[in-house]
């Protein structure tokens, strides 16, 4: 039971980060390979706040989100203002992710490559679930609003969006900030779940997995990436594969989804209690 609970907590943590990234990738159309950096910023902010400064966890958690959000401005403002071609932007995020990891490895306050151990276990099942519900609530309110609609318009056609009076830079930056806050909160929860963090936990592999979760879940969907986060957490466990084979299982699962459902599990749709087929059109309709 505690074993299953542990996996569920991990799945929810990934879902929190994935929902945030879904807003940026699935709804705004921007591909990132550096979001693990924001998880790292959140994880370290929270760990340092609680361990070094003795802040209560429930204060440190939003702080982690905020600092992660602010850190996204560092990379977001120059790259998004320059309106880089999308592939160049993605490479810039990759570079940012690596730079952040190297920075964490070399700072004293983060204890360098050895990382920080002995963190308290604050990410209980209840806390994580509550945060996930809140994050989905905010994400849903965001994408169902005119602010989400502006983002969707840019994803659909940046030129037509601009010529409908939508400025690309502020909308993309807003989505990036939102996704970074979510990733930061996810990272903070992760730190207080595993109770140990080090820079090597937040590599390009973690970023890629996060983006894969969103793509597999489906562009333009919030519930799809949540579903995918759970699949990616549980399926390798069910197969009881370990270490290296776990990554193979991830890969196989991802390939299977892309081949069988190119639009992702829930492309442009949401799971809905009201209509079981998920035929609800909003926020795209």
């Amino acid at each position, binding site marked *: 039971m505690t074993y299953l609970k542990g996996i569920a907590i991990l799945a929810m943590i990934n879902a929190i980060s994935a929902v945030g990234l879904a807003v940026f990738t699935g709804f705004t159309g921007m591909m990132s390979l550096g979001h693990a950096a924001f998880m790292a910023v959140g994880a370290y902010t929270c760990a340092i706040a609680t361990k070094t400064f003795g802040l209560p966890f429930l204060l440190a958690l939003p702080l982690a989100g905020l600092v992660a959000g602010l850190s996204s401005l560092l990379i977001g403002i120059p790259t998004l203002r320059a309106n880089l071609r999308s592939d160049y932007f993605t490479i810039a995020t990759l570079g940012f992710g690596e730079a952040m990891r190297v920075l964490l490895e070399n700072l004293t306050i983060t204890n360098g490559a050895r990382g920080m151990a002995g963190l308290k276990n604050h990410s209980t099942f209840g806390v994580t679930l509550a945060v996930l519900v809140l994050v989905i609530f905010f994400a849903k309110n965001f994408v169902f*609003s*005119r602010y989400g609609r*502006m983002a969707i*318009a840019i994803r659909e056609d940046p030129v037509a969006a601009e010529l409908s009076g*939508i400025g690309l830079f502020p909308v993309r930056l807003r989505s990036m900030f939102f996704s970074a806050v979510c990733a930061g909160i996810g990272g903070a929860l992760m730190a207080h779940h595993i109770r140990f963090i080090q820079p090597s936990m937040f590599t390009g592999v973690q970023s890629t997995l996060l983006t894969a979760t969103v793509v597999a879940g489906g562009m333009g969907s919030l519930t799809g990436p949540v579903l995918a986060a759970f699949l990616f957490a549980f399926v390798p466990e069910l197969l009881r594969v370990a270490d290296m084979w776990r990554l193979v299982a991830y890969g196989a699962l991802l390939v299977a989804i892309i081949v069988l459902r190119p639009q992702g599990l829930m492309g442009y749709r949401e799971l809905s209690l009201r209509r079981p087929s998920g035929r609800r059109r909003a926020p795209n309709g």
Partner: protein
Amino acid sequence: MADFLDIRGLTKHFGGILAVEDLSLSVAQGTVLGIIGPNGAGKTTVFNLITGVYPPSEGELLLEGQSLAGLPPHTIVQRGVARTFQNIRLFRNLTVRQNIVTALDLRQKPYSLAQALLCNPPFVESPVKAGERALRERAMTYLELVGIEAQADRRADNLPYGLQRKLELARALALEPKLLLLDEPAAGMNPDESMELCALIRSIQRQLSLTVLVIEHHMDLVMELCDRLCVLSFGKKLAEGTPAEIQSDPAVLKAYLGEGWVRA
């Protein structure tokens, strides 16, 4: 007095290609100007320059005396310019209605970001839900204007081609422009459909007292719709005048209309 739209010495080159060269043009408020010319003449480039898709290499663009040159597209749209595209650019995964709602956002801002995030619990009435409802209703008036209200809930890319063009027109109108640019609105339509579109554009133009620039290859439509014509060839203005004048201009006949062209 300065004209409504004043283009002075407009030039654009892409590397070695001179797409538009030293173009000067004045358009009076409430008139329809047709831009015609052979393929590659630089017609679409003129639209791209007016709407800020590219900055001009040289020259000035004045709308009601204010310069547009160098402004980003979304600012130019706020100044009252809207357009359609030669290769249709809709928000394809959205419904017809949401395409319009997206454009309505420019003038109607019914709620703030904080309200959207914090004051919109599920199943409960909120400023966000009320605002969205109002936008959806308002969108219908634009769909009715071009006669595609029956398609409101279809996905934009499921519409037949001709209706997609009408949706693009409706979306441009939803921006409440003063100056409307139409890039080949009748492309792919048969003569009947294009004459029907012509009547529609005319009636909307009068109703909203719009100034319209239209690029079109359907000569019947151009002659019928436009108050004045500007003929481009290799980026340069070849002739300008009323449709009757253009029809009898020997240089134009030679370069574009072809020798034996007569009005249908």
